[in-house]
């Protein structure tokens, strides 16, 4: 890692902005590509496989181990998106060999994931697999998710842990499932594999203001015709820390209200592709 950094050419010489002529019409945002000298030299190389994205905020106790496990078992690039952590998350992740994208302000889990997806697109990856930094998701489940998307069976594979969650949480999910018609059991799982089409959709400005990564993201994907499949996985217990969305009645209340309104504004827009649960 350090050797690579030393070999990189100085910013002032190497970086030149290339103004992309493509505009994302309804937002008037010009998409710009960043090219370095090294990049131009290796132009034309074929696209790369997949990258693992880990959004993290104050997870220095577990992120190092998670990164190491993924790197050793899968030999793939791991990107940790740091959501303005106050602890040693960034240093720990770097030491473990991850690429760190440090956010200058807190964007939340979805904002962090979108950053990772935009990075993955910029680097030419075909697939992005998101997972949590707290050790709940195991690297051993990644190949299964990867397989579902790379075989073309679905655009998005969700690693579903079907037995988790308290009664109120499961009731909330059932309610949202009914409201939106999304046949997804584990709506809030952050363990997902996104194929290239999904990545492109999720990198757009439309997707930027979604506040939570679960329903809003799935609804947007479905509205764009993506196929979503669930793959049952084993989830380990959270070693340290607690759920942020369900941390207090206030945050749960806000979450339910917010998601409820989102559902109401999107129901009725059911499109072609039904989602299905992968049979083992």
């Amino acid at each position: 890692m350090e050797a690579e950094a030393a070999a990189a050419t100085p910013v002032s010489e190497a970086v030149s902005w290339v103004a992309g002529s493509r505009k994302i019409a309804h937002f008037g945002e010009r998409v710009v590509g960043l090219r370095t000298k090294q990049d131009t030299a290796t132009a034309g190389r074929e696209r790369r496989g997949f990258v693992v994205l880990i959004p993290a905020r104050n997870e220095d106790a577990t992120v190092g181990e998670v990164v190491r496990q993924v790197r050793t078992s899968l030999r793939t690039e791991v990107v940790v998106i740091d959501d303005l952590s106050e602890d040693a998350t960034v240093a720990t992740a770097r030491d473990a060999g991850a690429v760190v994208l440090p956010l200058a302000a807190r964007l939340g889990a979805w904002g962090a994931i979108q950053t990772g997806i935009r990075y993955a697109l910029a680097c030419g990856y075909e697939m992005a697999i998101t997972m949590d930094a707290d050790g709940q998701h195991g690297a051993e489940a990644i190949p299964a998710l990867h397989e579902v998307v790379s075989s073309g069976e679905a655009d998005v594979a969700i690693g579903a842990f079907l037995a988790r969650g308290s009664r109120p949480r499961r009731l909330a999910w059932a309610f949202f499932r009914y409201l939106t018609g999304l046949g997804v059991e584990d709506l809030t799982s952050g363990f997902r594999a996104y194929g290239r089409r999904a990545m492109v959709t999720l990198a757009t400005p439309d997707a930027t203001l979604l506040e939570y990564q679960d329903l809003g993201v799935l609804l947007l994907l479905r509205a764009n015709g993506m196929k979503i499949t669930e793959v049952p996985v084993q989830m380990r217990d959270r070693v340290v820390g607690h759920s942020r969305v369900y941390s207090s009645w206030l945050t749960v209340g806000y979450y339910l209200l917010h998601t409820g309104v989102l559902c109401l504004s999107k129901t009725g827009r059911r499109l072609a592709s039904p989602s299905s649960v992968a049979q083992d």
Partner: protein
Amino acid sequence: MVTSYQWISTGTGALVAAAIFYLVRRDHLHGRYALWWLPIAVVVAVLGAYPRLVDLVGPVLGIHYPPVLPLVVGFALVLIKLLMMDIERSKSERRLQRLIQRVAILEGRLRHTPPVEPEEY
């Protein structure tokens, strides 16, 4: 004979209008915000000088207690303004979020340049 209430009313109207004109002139209130506030300045000045105008307009609109007219219109304008501000805010937040993301991606790539031609994102 000009009553003290008329002086106060005209004076207040003129003051508010003058303040808005001054802000626009000095560019503290510029562009489309000026477009919104200048007509308001004019209306406030006119109504301040001739408050009885609402007595003329009110009955035409079916309002039996004319003084309520400026209040109702004023309130409606405030609601519209607030709505416009929230929409603007959403746009700004989106832009800011994407900017923060781009900076993070740049910083990540500064330290670690992957050996592939980057795509648009």
